[in-house]
């Protein structure tokens, strides 16, 4: 009995000690992460425009309600969705294919992987500048090659139809290598014995890839998709530098429109509400992808 009481006392003291130990980190977390988030949440329920004569005041859910009637919000959501689906699909397929090819290389895997990383390391403004030169109608190399092939020159970012695909191309160039590296690291972590057994059982290389490699990579794929989903929903830098959201609103993403409302029109309440809606959207989508990842692996892999 005495031993039990002693243990209880020890566990009570231990709890206090534990609380004391985590308190600084918790306070820091609350101070630099939770408090600003709550402050921003409060702001999203306010009418607060820095250039308005009105004093900031509480307006309930009006900012959120206004979002549903704002055609520019819906068009920017549409642009973001098309962009996200396009880049994730293309980058995933290309990333996986290149990673599989890289895995089969007998030599220079590390060297190639390092070189592949360069586009993702570059500053987005450098990337935008270089693509601005590439897309240039008169002196850009892309149109130069089209001219050599006697094909019509392209305006690239100059048409409402062409601008978004041009941005997808830039994002593809910048972020596919990142996808390749994630997939390559995933492939390297898979147990070789499974593939060897499949080979002994007579499976072709294609069958091994489809029925073993890809299912086993499912968790890596999910993480990669979530990371790129977050990146695609936050896309701002290359839009700002290459198209400024135009022509018209054809490349105006959610992040760009939030910036316009917050930093060009200084409507803090409305732009914060938009940011929270984006946050909720990404969280829900990420949760769905994680849910898919946590589903038990089917018979084909067993």
């Amino acid at each position, binding site marked *: 009995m005495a031993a039990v009481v002693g243990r209880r006392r020890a566990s009570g003291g231990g709890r206090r000690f534990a609380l004391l130990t985590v308190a600084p980190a918790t306070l820091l977390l609350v101070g630099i992460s939770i408090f600003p988030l709550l402050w921003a949440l409060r702001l999203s329920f306010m009418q607060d425009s820095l250039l*308005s004569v*009105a004093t*900031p005041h509480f307006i309930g859910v009006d900012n959120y309600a206004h979002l549903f009637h704002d055609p520019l919000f819906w068009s920017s959501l549409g642009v973001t969705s098309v962009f996200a689906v396009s880049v994730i699909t293309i980058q995933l397929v290309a990333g996986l294919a290149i990673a599989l090819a890289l895995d089969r290389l007998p030599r220079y895997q590390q060297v190639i992987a390092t070189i592949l990383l360069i586009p993702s390391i570059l500053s987005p403004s450098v990337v935008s500048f270089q693509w601005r030169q590439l897309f240039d*109608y008169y002196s850009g190399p892309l149109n130069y090659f089209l001219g050599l092939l006697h094909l019509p*020159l392209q305006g690239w970012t100059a048409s409402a139809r062409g601008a978004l695909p041009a941005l997808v191309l830039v994002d593809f160039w910048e972020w596919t290598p990142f996808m390749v590296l994630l997939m390559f690291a995933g492939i390297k972590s898979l147990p070789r014995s499974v593939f060897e057994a499949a080979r002994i059982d007579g499976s072709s290389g294609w069958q091994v890839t489809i029925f073993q490699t890809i299912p086993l990579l499912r968790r890596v794929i999910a993480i990669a998709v979530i990371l790129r989903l977050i990146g695609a929903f936050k896309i701002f830098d290359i839009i700002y530098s290459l198209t400024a959201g135009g*022509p018209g609103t*054809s490349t105006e993403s959610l992040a760009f429109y939030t910036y*316009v409302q917050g930093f*060009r*029109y200084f409507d803090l309440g409305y732009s914060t509400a938009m940011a929270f809606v984006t946050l909720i959207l990404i969280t829900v989508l990420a949760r769905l992808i994680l849910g898919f990842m946590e589903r038990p692996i089917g018979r084909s892999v067993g």
Partner: protein
Amino acid sequence: MPPITRRNFLADSAKASALLALGGTSVGSLLSACGTSSASSEATTLAVEIDAGQNANPFMWFANDMQSAVGVSPKIIGLPFVGQYEKIVSEMITRSNVYDVLVFPPFFVGDFVAKGFLHKLTDFGSESDFKLDDVLPVYRDVYLKRNGNLYAAAYDGDQLQIAYRKDMFDKAGITKAPTTWDEFVATAQALHQPPTQYGNAFYGQRGFCYGWFINIFAANGGKWFSSDMTPGIAGDAGVKALETLIKLKRYAPPNILQIGYPELNEAYLNGSTAMVVQWNDLALKAEDSTKSKSVGMNGYAPSPVANYMPYSRVMAISAYTSNPHNSYKLIQYMNRSEVSIKDVYDPNCGEDPFRTSHFDTSAVKDHTGKPTMSAAAATTYVSANKGGLAIGYPELSIPGAPRYIDILDLKVNEALSGGSTAAQALKSASDEWNSITTALDKSAQVKAYADWVDSFHKAGINY
């Protein structure tokens, strides 16, 4: 005393904390922090905010002379051309003293004065220091003053202007620059021979394409607003103007929606475009053999019927600078006629004439004293400038102007890209303008607009 608001309170608390923390600081520094310094205690290297690129060059060309003459020198802080407004406002609302001198387009003046971002120049000297009698009335009365007070000094006098290839006109049997927009469209069509020669080009990129719409809108008799702040853009004058611009797109390079200021210069200077409407500094570049393929083959003329004057640049003292007296000296130096005349004829910057004395064609030399264009070209250029001013249509410059303009620009760009018809785009912009007016307090906007229009009349502008 300014009203106690949340921001004022936070800023004042921060300032008080800083002062307490610097308990041992000298009285001079404290006075400086409170903005009541004298010129002798102020810094002599001053942070000059300006859109980055060629327009900052004159400050650097004259840095040494300025130091000798008035004892101050500039440190340039370049901001992006599109995005300058939000960057300045972001700094100013936190009462940042990162800028001493602000160089910006006058359509920011309405907002900046209303929000208390600027010192009056006359707090540190006299109006006579700026020889205002020599400044062209349209810039002096409309762009520099608010409520009778001088807040800014001119740095650049922009206007749109036609630049055209006389050789291409001659070849097509066209004898003069167009004087109506119907003529302009017909001329562009006649000269359009893609892919080697395009009939015309204009600023089609998002950011400033609204200016090329307003240029035609003004010619159609359009007004920004009626006296009760009903937007004028969605009426017949506006719809017809936007339809004209959309029509002109047919006779333009295929990348027209990608064309901004540098690309528009390039489209003309590389010899592929017969006629452009562009800011007037293009003429200086078109007559410079290091930049142009058409030296001696260019003609210049005002835009048909009315001539829009978008942008321009003025210099003002930030309300939060610790160095207001020295900032005044820098502004006064750069505004001098003998300094500014060297800028406005130099093809390596974008500054344009804003003083009567700038129209002396014998002064067409760059800052090193080298002639920049032939006497004949200079005469045509100056004549086009004078003609443009006579039919000048000023840029909107009331509180909220950047926001009104941004929305208009977006909608014009949307129509140009085929996303909506001219009527739909302008109706949508008009609705947004009404929302902005309401948000900014309609009665205050009515008064601000009336005062602004009144300044036109004082400047002799028929509006």
